[in-house]
């Protein structure tokens, strides 16, 4: 009967492993985990400036930086309680919120900044009918924008998901007819002569929300002081870039270094994104995008019954407004 006990022990340890859940958050938080996306510095230059200028340290915060390949990964880590603050797209944030995870947007990061690049033979939007367009994946705003274009012009566009840096290669090899990507990859492809910009995200969704600053709801309730400090560092970084031409040029150099893109490409790419970015969340745009997610089944139907309530839970501008008020 030993065997049975062995089996029992094995099963029990299995249960233990499966049931293991991370315990999160200590009472005294001095150290924060901040996540950002690889090569996404044009959209989220603030995190890069904070890093380079050690702005968190100035606020008395110790920081551990985390680098991620996509917003979805950032969200998984946020949900697991490992990342405390992050800059990434609003779409993955809303998808995660739609799964019932308490993630909260505390400030906007940038608007617009993506564009559709197509091969030379495509001249007008109508030509996109039946075209294969590369998108960064199902959970991205760019994917949603392709749908919006298709709906608006009543055409059919075939989506092809792929990693953004690969898109120019696919376009060059003729495997796709075009792609939609964020800066500077789109500008880079255009500079290499692989295609031309057909539509910018400004043409598709004027002033649409792209990236945001996110945190866990729990931190807002338990660690308001920390959130305040993070907000201060974040906004200071924002303002640093805008303060002078010199600062702007310095930031430009940083972007060149982090994204490994040629300088003229970065300059062009930056010109395509409206500037300065408003630090607020564009609520109308967020609502519109959430509707799209519901329609596409990316947020399960029935999860959002009241859109205003959903957005109100998602967006928590208190700390941002608090900072802006004190600044004046």
């Amino acid at each position, binding site marked *: 009967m030993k*065997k049975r006990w*062995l*089996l029992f022990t094995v099963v029990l340890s299995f249960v233990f492993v499966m049931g*293991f*859940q*991370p315990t999160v958050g200590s009472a005294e938080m001095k150290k924060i*985990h901040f*996540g950002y996306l*690889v*090569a996404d510095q044009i959209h989220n230059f603030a995190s890069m400036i904070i890093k380079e200028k050690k702005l968190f340290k100035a606020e008395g915060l110790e920081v551990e*930086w*985390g*680098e*991620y*390949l996509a917003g979805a*990964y*950032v969200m*998984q*880590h946020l*949900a*697991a*309680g*490992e*990342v405390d603050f992050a800059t990434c797209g609003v779409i993955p944030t809303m998808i995660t919120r739609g799964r019932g995870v308490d993630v909260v947007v505390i400030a906007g990061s940038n608007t617009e900044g993506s564009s559709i690049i197509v091969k030379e033979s495509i001249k007008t939007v109508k030509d996109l009918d039946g075209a294969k367009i590369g998108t960064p994946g199902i959970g991205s705003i760019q994917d949603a924008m392709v749908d919006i274009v298709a709906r608006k012009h009543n055409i059919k566009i075939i989506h092809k998901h792929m*990693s*953004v*840096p690969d898109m*120019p*290669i696919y376009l*060059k090899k003729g495997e796709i007819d075009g792609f939609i990507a964020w800066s500077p990859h789109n500008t880079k492809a255009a500079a*290499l002569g692989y295609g031309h910009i057909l539509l910018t995200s400004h043409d598709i969704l004027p002033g649409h929300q792209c990236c945001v600053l996110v945190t866990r709801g729990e931190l807002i309730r338990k660690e308001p002081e920390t959130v305040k400090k993070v907000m201060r560092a974040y906004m200071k970084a924002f303002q640093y870039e805008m303060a002078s031409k010199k600062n702007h040029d310095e930031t430009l150099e940083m972007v060149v*270094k*982090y*994204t*490994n*893109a040629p300088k003229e490409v970065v300059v062009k790419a930056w010109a395509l994104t409206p500037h300065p970015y408003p630090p607020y969340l564009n609520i109308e745009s967020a609502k519109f995008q959430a509707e799209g997610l519901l329609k596409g089944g990316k947020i399960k139907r029935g999860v959002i019954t009241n859109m205003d309530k959903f957005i109100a839970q998602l967006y928590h501008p208190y700390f941002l407004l608090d900072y802006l008020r004190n600044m004046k």
Partner: protein
Amino acid sequence: MTNNYAEKMKTMGLNFFTLAMVLVLWTLIAYWQKSPFFATPYDIVLGFVQMVTVGDVEGYRLWSHMLHSLVRVSAGFAAACLVGIPGGLLLGLYPKIYDRTRILVEPIRFISPIAWIPMAIVLLVGFSRYIFVIWVASFFPIFVSTLWSVRQVNAVYVNVARVAGASRLFIIRKIIFPSILPSVIGGMRISLGISWMCIVAAEMIGGQMVGIGRLILKSAMVTRMDLVVVGMISIGFVGYATNELIIFIEKRIFRWRAAVSIE
């Protein structure tokens, strides 16, 4: 002896020749591609020098990437050994347990480590994720080779001990364990190879800046193909070196065995 030495030198020379051929071919392809997405051997050498002297964008050098990856791989591999060897021994001694739960255990073998990543991210935390992903990949070779070698221990040896009135524990310690050791170590070698191969998969779990897999993924994101290749070559080289090392040790320890496979 002199003959042997000449033979060795010749083999080495031919190896260098092959390597040179590959480099030439590579240069030609790079030349023909003329693409910023394909690095020439020269770029790679420069990239290597950069990684050794300056480091990547964040200033992490090659050795620190390697060190971090090695720590993760060793931890995952150690976990695989800790679970795999006793587990294999146990289920080998009680084959019925394995036969009756096979349907649970076996399919897990075929789920690729990358597929576990989303689950690992949400269910585990920090370092344990790396351990888990590498464990999933490297557990099975070691577990299965232990299990099967226990099942195939020569019954004569066991009977010799049993006739002498040995206790069960004695038989396990003195007969079964020594006779399965070679195949356990063989399994460990395969496991180590696989766990090292999973480092890129494991380091797709984000949040860490260092690690050889991270270097590859990150460099691919910013189209630094030279650094991607530097990372690939580093992984290939370290994997090859550890494998050769274990084969060397194996040959030393198990001289009594007729042949050691190099799979």
